[in-house]
């Protein structure tokens, strides 16, 4: 990149001439703040050469105003009073650079997010805006000439989580020639989608559309697939992450096992005895198992918790005998891998709400109360009943009640709408009706079907004669108020559209459990140094304009780890995350913030306070000279060392003590 001709260089700072540009932001600012009075005030401030206002400073003509003034030599420093720097700092820095000045000769005053949007009174707002402008003006006069920093971006990518989001992101990247490390905690990839029978609204078979992608992952030359593995450490920074991955022992060698399943057949346990997690506990598995036939990789796993050999050491080990490939290795232990990647895509997914937290719905108390995920397994041809919907006693349900919003939209549990439950409840209603001919009642608070073909699907379900009751279910019980209720579960709800309480006896209750962040979301977030809301969904950089990136450059989000979403949205987001990661990698470098710390050799007293404080080990100490120095490549620019330095030797670019003192004076310069 050719460096533009700079009017001022480190040596020739020249006379400071500040241009102040106050944005109206339509009426967003001007509706509250008296912009002309702010401009008038700004023009009285020291070193201010030009003060202007404009409807939209971020627009091309707005930026052109700045560039022109810079080119004309009217100004050599720029202050824009508009929105938050988190919004448009980059825009205006670029404009400043285009005008021929260092991009860092710029400062922003946030008079929208911090003033006009949050202040009730116009006079107060104007006064506060002036103070913020005064602070920015004082500060920018002190800004120093800085070279922008660049960091190289490594070419490989890590994708964490191999549900449909992770799979899609990994395949997109791999197809573009990037090497992808795909890490999955479970023994197979596929995630929740692999458990479903059909998907709304098209009712295409989940396995039919997912398994080809799963095997593509397995065979792709650019994908290193690590299942039964998790990320235990992330180090480094944007473009250069070192990720440590732990592989849990399967006690079967992945490279040898062919997935013939002969060992399972030969296990000393003649029948499954332990709850099969994949089938939500609706069937039993052996200590050696494979979650489902199309599991990827098709490698069996031994569960040491239940395997007789691990528990007692006494077992004829018929499994080993059965294996023609000698794939068993009971001595396996955890192993670790460390890889260097340039970008990370997080696709860690969700968990479903634990229905036993709502005892009023009787889950765990009445055997015929199921969660939606359990019903998905019952409907699945590869599920515990081979796709037959039957109750735990083997009988067929004649009346089925599906309760929406379980755990969602509820101040006692999760406040949010889980977005997918209305649609999947309609899908389940259709499927159980088709398979069993049962009468199906759906109990909903509000019907939410925004999405392509979704309302049409709702219409189809209505035509099929599924009963829709608008009312949140108050309780499920086996109390019989009349002979018809005897022997049934009774669902009690107000049918709010008729204004009466209804008691509907059913044989099977299905709880449409909502979506929740993974229980360890907070740990994962800390590991990757991104943020999340109190509830645990990962926070995107901007809810609208940067929905797949995070505040940590190089870490992207895909799928439900960011919030509830359905499969189409998840896949779209995964594609977007892959594209953004790719854009970063293909460029090959990242621009970094210039705000690193540095230590003035003269002033350093050699007290070493800073050395221990730096969380990134960026400060080293020269024992001979008794001076500390900062490695600006490692420095991330937090300024902790600067705040602690007793002699004022440590300083931070763009946040020097002088700059902040002047900003303090500025905000206190009341008018």
């Amino acid at each position: 990149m050719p460096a533009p001709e700079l009017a001022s260089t480190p040596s020739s700072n020249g006379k400071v001439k500040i241009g102040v540009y106050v944005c109206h932001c339509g009426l967003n600012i001007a509706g509250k703040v008296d912009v002309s009075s702010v401009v008038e005030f700004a023009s009285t401030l020291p070193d201010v050469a030009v003060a202007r206002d404009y409807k939209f400073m971020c627009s091309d003509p707005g930026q052109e105003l700045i560039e022109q003034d810079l080119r004309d030599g009217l100004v050599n420093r720029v202050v824009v009073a508009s929105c938050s720097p988190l919004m448009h700092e980059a825009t205006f820095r670029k404009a400043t650079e285009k005008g021929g000045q260092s991009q860092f000769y710029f400062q922003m005053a946030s008079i929208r997010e911090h003033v006009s949007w949050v202040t009730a009174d116009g006079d107060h707002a104007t006064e506060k805006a002036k103070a913020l402008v005064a602070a920015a003006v004082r500060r920018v006069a002190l800004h120093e000439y800085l070279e922008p920093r660049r960091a190289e971006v490594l070419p490989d990518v890590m994708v964490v989580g191999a549900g449909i989001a992770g799979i899609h992101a990994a395949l997109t990247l791999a197809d573009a020639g990037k090497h992808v490390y795909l890490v999955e905690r479970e023994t197979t990839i596929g995630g929740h989608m692999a458990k479903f029978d059909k998907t709304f609204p098209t009712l295409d078979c989940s396995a039919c559309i997912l398994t080809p992608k799963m095997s593509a992952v397995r065979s792709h030359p650019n994908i290193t697939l690590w299942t039964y593995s998790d990320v235990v450490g992330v180090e480094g920074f944007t473009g250069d992450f070192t990720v440590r991955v732990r592989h849990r022992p399967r006690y079967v060698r992945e490279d040898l096992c062919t997935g013939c399943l002969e060992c399972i057949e030969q296990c000393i346990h003649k029948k499954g005895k332990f709850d099969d997690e994949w089938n939500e506990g609706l069937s039993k598995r052996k200590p050696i198992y494979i979650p489902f036939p199309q599991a990827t990789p098709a490698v069996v796993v031994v569960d040491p918790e239940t395997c007789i050999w691990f528990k007692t050491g006494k077992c004829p080990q018929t499994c080993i005998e059965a294996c023609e490939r000698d794939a068993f290795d009971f001595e396996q232990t955890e192993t670790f891998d460390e890889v260097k990647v340039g970008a990370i895509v997080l696709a860690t997914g969700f968990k479903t709400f634990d229905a036993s937290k709502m005892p009023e719905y009787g889950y765990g108390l009445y055997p015929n109360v199921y969660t939606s995920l359990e019903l998905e397994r019952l409907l699945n041809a590869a599920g515990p009943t081979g796709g037959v919907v039957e109750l735990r006693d083997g009988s067929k349900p004649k009346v089925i009640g599906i309760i929406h919003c379980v755990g969602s939209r509820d101040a006692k549990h999760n406040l949010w709408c889980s977005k997918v439950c209305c649609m999947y409840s309609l899908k389940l209603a259709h499927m159980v009706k088709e398979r069993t001919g049962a009468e199906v009642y759906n109990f909903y608070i509000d019907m939410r079907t925004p999405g392509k073909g979704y309302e049409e699907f709702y219409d189809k379900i209505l035509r099929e004669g599924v009963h829709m009751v608008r009312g949140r279910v108050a309780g499920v019980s086996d109390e019989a108020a009349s002979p018809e209720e005897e022997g049934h579960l009774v669902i009690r709800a107000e049918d709010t559209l008729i204004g009466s309480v209804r008691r509907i006896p059913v044989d099977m209750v299905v709880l449409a459990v909502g979506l929740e962040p993974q229980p360890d979301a907070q740990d994962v977030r800390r590991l990757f140094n991104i943020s999340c809301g109190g509830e645990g969904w990962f926070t995107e950089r901007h809810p609208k304009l940067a929905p797949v990136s995070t505040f940590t450059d190089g870490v992207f989000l895909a799928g439900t780890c960011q919030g509830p979403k359905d499969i189409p949205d998840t896949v779209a987001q995964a594609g977007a995350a892959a594209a953004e990661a790719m854009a970063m990698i293909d460029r090959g470098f990242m621009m970094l913030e210039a705000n690193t710390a540095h230590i003035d050799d003269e002033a350093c007293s050699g007290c070493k306070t800073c050395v221990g404080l730096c969380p990134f080990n960026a400060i080293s100490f020269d024992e001979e000279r008794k001076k500390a120095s900062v490695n600006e490549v490692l420095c991330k620019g937090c300024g902790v060392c600067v705040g602690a330095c007793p002699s004022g030797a440590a300083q931070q670019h763009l946040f020097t003590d002088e700059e902040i003192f002047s900003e303090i004076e500025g905000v206190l310069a009341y008018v």
Partner: protein
Amino acid sequence: MSEASPGPVATPSSFEPRIVAFFCNWCTYTAADLAGISRMQYAPNVRAIRLMCSGRVDPQFVLSALREGADGVLIGGCHPGDCHYQEGNYNALRRFELLKLMLRDFGIEDERVRLEWISASEGDRVQQVCNEMTEQVRALGPLRLAVPSEGHGRADADEPALQAVGREAR
């Protein structure tokens, strides 16, 4: 909404406290942006200065603010364990505790300086804390430093105490 969050307009007292806030870029400043996006009205008395991390807050910033005429100082950082720079907020906390001890010696009430953990998603906390702090400081009245000077708390050569630890001493 303005009734629910009494700004200084609604109260009879004519004293408008001046509060300088230091917000970390990743959590509290972002939360303040969120408060803005959500149009949460709060007292205009709090004026935020953006720092990359609450750990950057030098005690001298606080002293300087008080000396320059602030009646209170608010520091906002990420929740413990959530620091974008791993543990800058712990540094802020340790420094803050010491700072409070020192301020007590100057006769500055504890309520005038406040450290709050506000995460990026807690826009409502920004509103609440700013309003609370404004009311608290308003109740305390203008800051009068141990050695009073003309005007209220303005930088002045008659304030040896604060000045000694203040900016000029560096």
